[in-house]
């Protein structure tokens, strides 16, 4: 058997390599040249549910603009997911590739805070501007005593800041949910767990801090290595034993964010709260028959559909991008980031006398963005790259609609 078997195996392997080696084509000319806007999101596997929305939004913005001051605009999409989970190393690799492509003048992304932490230093050295629709970790831009690494450590002191975002940081997202839990849901005792990642732990800590300072009690606090943990029943039992009337999950769907909800069946049926990371269809799938109207999440960006003037835009977008995962909570924030970038590139071209601007000129133009009215808000940036005003939205799962439903939103200052 062995010879034929080995030959067959060889054929199989050769086929695999051939398939993997298949190259991608693309690229075309414009009048004055081509400017590329890159996107960097996790768009395969479990994380596609979160990453595809903003990618589609940014692509739509570039497609509708098509040109800027005589330059042809195009988009190049990068995926930072490895085995379906966002990966900082993959992100850094993508950014190295972008830095080496002189046509790329700006990046929309990344989606996840830990990917941002790995990619800011790469882009900073090359003055490549990046705008994230969804990064919420406060330590990316602001210096707090507990920040490790400090924001300054991610940047070269001699270079201007290249990192901007339009989402409200975790210092706001966690506390906003704490306010919601105490004021609206009337919860006074809560159990908090996190996936021990930059984002998950950060948002859980900020939630717990505000919850405690408003007079509530965090009765159980646990951090899990979600790669090896699949049994959350001891945690849930502990929460029940301590009288928890709610659970806060500092996690994302890719880090088992909603699996404790499924396991709480028969143990503890209380409101299940989380950050934007659990606000997707994967979470609902994971929760199984425990996906009820007791699940809530915060979104660090406004819901575009709440503004009636966005109706035409949303309809047109849905016609161009009809897939279900094209429309997510961060689709229009992604669209807006690309809009900010296109607007800035336009001003940078003017500053360069109508010629191809340098990356530094684009970066300066983004920093100078003043009161730009877009689908999810009116944007200006402070010197750290944070938006001067942001919006926090709340969603609740509605079994009758089999989807997350908007509850309310409010503006938050920094």
């Amino acid at each position, binding site marked *: 058997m062995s010879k034929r078997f080995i030959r067959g195996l060889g054929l199989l392997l050769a086929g695999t390599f051939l398939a993997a080696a298949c190259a991608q084509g693309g690229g075309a000319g414009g009048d004055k040249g081509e400017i590329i806007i890159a996107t960097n999101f996790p768009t395969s596997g479990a994380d596609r549910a979160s990453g595809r929305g903003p990618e589609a939004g940014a692509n739509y913005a570039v497609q509708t603009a098509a040109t800027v001051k005589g330059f042809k605009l195009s988009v190049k999409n990068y995926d930072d997911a490895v085995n379906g989970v966002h990966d900082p190393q993959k992100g850094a690799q993508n950014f190295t590739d972008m830095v080496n492509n002189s046509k790329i003048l700006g990046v929309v992304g990344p989606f996840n805070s830990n990917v941002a932490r790995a990619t800011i230093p790469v882009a900073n050295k090359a003055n490549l501007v990046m705008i994230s629709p969804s990064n919420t970790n406060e330590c990316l831009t602001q210096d707090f005593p507990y920040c490790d690494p400090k924001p300054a450590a991610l940047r070269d002191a001699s270079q201007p800041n290249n990192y901007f975002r339009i989402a409200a940081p975790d210092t706001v997202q966690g506390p906003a949910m704490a306010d919601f839990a105490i004021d609206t849901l009337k919860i006074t005792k809560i159990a908090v767990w996190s996936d021990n990642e930059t984002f998950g732990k950060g948002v859980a800590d900020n939630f717990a801090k505000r919850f405690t300072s408003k007079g509530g009690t965090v009765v159980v606090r646990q951090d899990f290595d979600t790669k090896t943990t699949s049994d959350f029943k*001891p945690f849930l*039992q502990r929460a029940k034993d301590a009288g928890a009337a709610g659970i806060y999950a500092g996690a994302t769907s890719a880090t088992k964010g909603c*699996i404790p909800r499924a396991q709480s069946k028969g143990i503890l049926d209380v409101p299940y709260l989380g950050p934007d990371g659990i606000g997707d269809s994967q979470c609902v799938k*994971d*929760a199984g028959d425990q996906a009820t109207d007791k699940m809530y999440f915060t979104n660090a960006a406004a819901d575009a559909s709440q503004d009636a003037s966005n109706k035409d835009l949303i309809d047109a977008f849905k016609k161009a991008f009809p897939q279900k995962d094209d429309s997510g909570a961060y689709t229009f924030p992604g669209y807006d980031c690309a809009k900010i970038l296109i607007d800035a590139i336009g001003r940078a071209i003017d500053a360069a006398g109508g010629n191809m601007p340098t990356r530094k000129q684009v970066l300066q133009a983004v920093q100078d963005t003043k009161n730009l009215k877009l689908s999810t808000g009116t944007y200006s940036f402070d010197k750290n790259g944070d938006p001067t005003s942001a919006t926090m939205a709340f969603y609740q799962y509605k079994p009758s609609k089999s989807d997350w439903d908007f509850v309310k939103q409010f503006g938050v200052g920094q």
Partner: protein
Amino acid sequence: MGAVGEAIRRRRSDLRSGLTGRALDVGLYVLILAFLFLLGTRVIEHGPDYLLQIFFFALANGAIYALIALGYTMVYGIIELINFAHGDVFAFGAFASASLIPLFGLSEGQVWGPFTILQLLAVFVVTMLLCAVLNVSIERIAYRPLRHAPRLAPLITAIGMSFFLEGAMFLWKGPSSVHYPDVLPDLSFTILGARVGVKEITVWITTIVLVVGLALFIDRSRLGKAMRATAQDRDAAQLMGIDIDRTIAATFFIGAVLAGAGGIMYGLSYNTAVFDLGFSAGLVAFTAAVFGGIGNIYGAAIGGLVLGLIRTFWDGYFDSAWSDVVIFAILIMVLVFRPTGILGMRVPEK
């Protein structure tokens, strides 16, 4: 003069190593006592109901580890190979049964009757058979041709098979976690203030039936005797007329049957499965097998149970982030003092 100096120096170093050795022992005992004291205060703080509840969860957890560990230990006992693909056979069991459950007409939150028990039993049997066929094929393709090759060769094909299976499951169900339908009825009993659900009872009963069945099979049946003989001395067994290939294939078959059952129970207990689940679960189960004494069937069962207890108790009373650290720290301590595991290895000297 030189000789005297040498002697004095040796005396001194003896004394020193004796002292440090004793200090280490004392340190270890102090550490263990401090830990037990800490655990004791936590247990008292949470009360007896909670203790019993955690204990019930721990038993179910340990039973699943034990079922996977048995497959590792049986294969190691007979051909001294660590079947790295075994964890992935377990994961395959979870995936296959997740697909079979709707196929056999079961669904989440349904009404239960005698017929539903038959349906679930059918899921068990078909999944276990599928896993067995898979594991026997792995042995046929990747291990049997290499039986007389140097030791490292089958080790590498085992790792290769593990990655191959993970890749295949990745292509099959995708990279995201799959929701495992919660088909067991949402019934529970209260025993001394602690809640025992149908989930836990199913896991316990299945494990006990399978482990007792396995023990009887190995002790009493002809094939079991052939397995023991092959493990002891393959060449002598062959001379006595035992079909070695068949016996080894049977070992893989039985190991996979247990892993398949473990996969179903994992799914039923935690309601989730992911394509690379076999790696982490397999690592813990393999640890359990070494912990109990590799090659020793009772050792694997006890090792699995102990590891389940440690993990769940740690999760229940201390900080979960440290669970793996604690499990492996205890493993190191046990192996330093008892290199052959709790019950001792059952591997022939060669």
